[in-house]
């Protein structure tokens, strides 16, 4: 490709996960030319989409660590942020349950760790209190954290990016960074769509942060992918879970143990497992783990035995802990490279990265502010009102919307009650994301019990109405195409 004039940005963020998008939104307060590059066809396509969607309080990580500091700081930031951005969330509290007296010391340890980190209002509670807090949970003792919550991680990620965009930041999808050069105080990022020049770079590439760093000559990191499988129960399973319930996990567990988490829409999630895998993209589910998830969740909550599951998903954790090594804990890396001043690496941002993201964003902004002349822009747009969902609207709101715009009267997803208006609005996003998965994540079309059986043909029609040719319809961009042209008919 012949290079035209290379555009120069003050800061380029590599990676459109929740951390990258939080950094972009934080920096968009200032008078900076900003760009975010994402290799996939949508935001939140990596680590940010495959997790429990829990806002952690911060007692699961060692006090004094960056994980603990950013988690506790992030906990204070994320609720007001979600309100500003209109992102669905709920402060539920959570329970870590000990099934026997033997496990109580581990709860005390967790509480002590949390207290040292400044996690507010932790409490050890007994059987009676457990039942009162969550009738489905059982245990001898539990650690109760009232400030834990749940949030839609991809909706948060998308809202952060859209907010940054409203404040002038640019986002380019399907634009992987393939090589990095430098000179004249600028980094030159080569992508298949041309070279981009940046004064500062924030490497927030998640699972691939080590590889992106290596492109810049920084050989310090190695990210190990740990797979976590989940199962999602049908909303109609007859159980209403109010808050996340965790088992007491051992210190050696690479995750937090298989826990049971409610979603904002009333589903119940089981998982995740935690297994090192070779391939960073190996998001397959396995028969063995599916069976194990059910068995372990059933131990924690016998009522879950026999509930129908409507979906499975898998996330991959970007861990710095070497699966073959001895170290049990590795902290987040949030640092400017000594070798490449102006290049900031965010590496190993696994759990509690979702909660920590707004705090990490502030740290990064401070690091960049020390080097660039950053002035706050007047008229920063902090967010937007929550998106109206037809399924949640009352009768008069529904009637009023349909009378104003008939698209609200056309039901596309019969399981989750999503209208054409909501699908069209999702497709007219500022970044031009037009994949089936993007519609699913933004509207919930296809997340119900028919799993897209009925709405897929409808969305395919709407995509074509919105100008996407049938051959260009993909599940998640790239070569994930749905169709191979037309038949003779």
């Amino acid at each position, binding site marked *: 490709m012949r290079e035209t004039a290379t555009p120069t940005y003050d800061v380029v963020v590599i990676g459109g996960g929740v951390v990258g998008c939080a950094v972009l939104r934080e920096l968009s307060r200032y008078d900076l030319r900003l760009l975010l590059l994402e290799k996939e066809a949508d935001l939140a396509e990596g680590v940010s989409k495959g997790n429990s969607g829990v806002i952690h309080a911060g007692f699961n990580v060692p006090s004094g660590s960056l994980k603990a500091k950013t988690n506790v700081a992030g906990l204070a930031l994320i609720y007001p942020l979600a309100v500003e951005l209109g992102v669905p969330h709920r402060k539920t509290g959570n329970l870590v349950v000990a099934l026997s007296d033997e496990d109580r010391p581990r709860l005390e340890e967790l509480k002590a760790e949390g207290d040292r980190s400044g996690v507010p209002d932790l409490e050890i509670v007994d059987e009676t209190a457990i039942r009162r807090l969550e009738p489905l949970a059982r245990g001898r003792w539990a650690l109760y954290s009232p400030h834990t919550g749940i949030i839609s991680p991809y909706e948060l990620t998308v809202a952060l990016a859209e907010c940054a965009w409203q404040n002038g930041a640019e986002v380019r999808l399907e634009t992987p960074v393939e090589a990095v050069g430098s000179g004249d105080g600028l980094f030159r990022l080569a992508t298949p769509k041309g070279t981009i020049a940046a004064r500062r770079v924030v490497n927030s590439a998640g699972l691939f942060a080590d590889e992106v760093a290596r492109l810049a000559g920084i050989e310090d990191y190695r990210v190990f992918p740990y797979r976590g499988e989940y199962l999602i129960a049908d909303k*109609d399973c007859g159980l209403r879970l109010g808050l996340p319930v965790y088992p007491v996990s051992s210190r050696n567990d690479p995750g937090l143990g298989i826990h049971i988490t409610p979603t904002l829409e009333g589903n119940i999630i089981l998982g995740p497992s935690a297994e090192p895998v070779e391939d960073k*993209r190996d*998001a*397959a*589910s*396995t*028969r063995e783990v*599916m069976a194990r998830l059910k068995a372990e969740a059933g131990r924690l909550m016998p009522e879950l035995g026999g509930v*129908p*599951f*409507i*979906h*499975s*998903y898998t996330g991959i954790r970007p861990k710095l802990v070497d699966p073959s090594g001895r170290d049990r804990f590795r902290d987040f890396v949030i640092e400017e490279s000594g070798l490449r001043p102006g290049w900031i690496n965010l590496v190993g941002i696994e759990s509690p990265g979702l909660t920590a993201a707004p705090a990490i964003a502030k740290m990064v902004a401070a690091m960049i502010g020390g080097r660039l002349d950053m002035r706050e822009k007047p008229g920063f747009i902090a967010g937007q009102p929550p998106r109206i969902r037809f399924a949640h609207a009352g*009768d*008069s709101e*529904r*009637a009023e*919307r*349909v*009378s104003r715009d*008939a*698209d*609200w*009267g*056309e*039901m596309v997803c*019969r*399981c989750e*009650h999503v*209208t054409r208006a909501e699908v069209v609005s999702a497709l007219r996003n500022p970044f031009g994301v037009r994949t*089936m998965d993007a519609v699913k994540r933004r509207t919930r079309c296809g997340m119900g*019990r*028919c*799993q*897209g*059986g*009925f709405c*897929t*043909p409808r969305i*395919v*029609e709407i995509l074509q109405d919105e100008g996407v040719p*049938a051959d260009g319809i*993909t*599940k*998640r961009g*790239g*070569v*994930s*195409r*749905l*169709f*191979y*042209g*037309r*038949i*003779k*008919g």
Partner: protein
Amino acid sequence: MSGPRETCDVAVIGGGPAGLAAALGARRAGAGKVLLLERDRTLGGILNQCVHDGFGLFLYKETISGPEYAERLTEDVLREPIRVATGTMVLDLSPDRVLRVNSREGYRLVEAGAVVLAMGCRERTREMIEIPGTRPAGIFTAGSAQNLVNLQNLRIGNEAVILGSGDIGLIMARRLVFEGVAVKGVFEILPWANGLERNIRQCLMDLRIPLELRSTVVEIRGRDRVESVVVAKVDESLAPVAGTESVIPCDTLLLSVGLIPENELAKKAGVVLSPLTGGAVVDETLMTSIPGIFSCGNVLHIHDVADWASFEGFAAGERAARFAAGERPAGPTIRVSAGPNVRYALPQLVTRGKPGVEWSFRVKRPVRDVAVEVKGLTSGKVYARRKFARLLPSELQKIKVRVAVEEDLEVGCP
């Protein structure tokens, strides 16, 4: 809601083979205001995408295609003063028969004297049968694929594997071959095929598509688009047998692994459902546990041919009209259960002392030269006995008791 409210004598939810017939049945029984609600843009339901032949043998005494069958019933409906609302989805149904309805024309409430549920069914998914592996593009349920291919003329792949031998899967196997798609095989976990015999013959054998029984897909591979599936034999408990795996390269996996009555609205109204059928528990008038709410077609139980869904629709519509006109159930009921090798028998409840009741039933396993009996559970008396040269799980069968019965019954193959 202080908005528009509509009233009708009979509201029929769903305009497929059962709902169209129910609307007609209600009119013929004298209902004044009949409202037919269909969420799709046209009447006919799934019939519209069933472009193959084989419909109408019982209703019209000739075989026609799905769209032709839909057209004939629709023409009859349009000749009647039935209010047809297409593009209209019922979102909620209360036990006192108030419907929340949405369409491009407006969001509104409908109060109905009686309601007929005729919403049809949905397909079982990959997730319900828990196939491990990746989540690439190229996995379709057979019915969605049928919609995309037959109604939208889209080519869904080049090399396909079909899991499950349900009728839609068999029909789609043939359809794909006609469109130049290589169909590598149909895999069925059970020791027998699930579809109608004529479909096995015409859609697979005639086209030399292999049907592998006692085998299933144990893994899906491919990150962006399906690249292959792993199939394996299963043992008696339907668990995959280690060492029997083989990898089949393909870019498409079609699932035809069962249908589920779509009773979301019935649940909202509090209708009692049967775990055996997935549909409502009904009496011989097809009335559910909620007075004035009737059920017919695939939302009641899965049918093998559309004609039977229509016959059920006529009956449900007629009964709904009579309920709307003030007729109430005749009295206490007896229970009817499924006996040996019978998956279910419907209706599950019958008015005590009512003669001439006919049951629909399905067997659990294929059997030859058997007699099916309707037997009194207290007296052991056999009220009806019908011989069959062969019974298949894929076929819906009937048995009728002519006399009045006063005790609980069982339908079984002793």
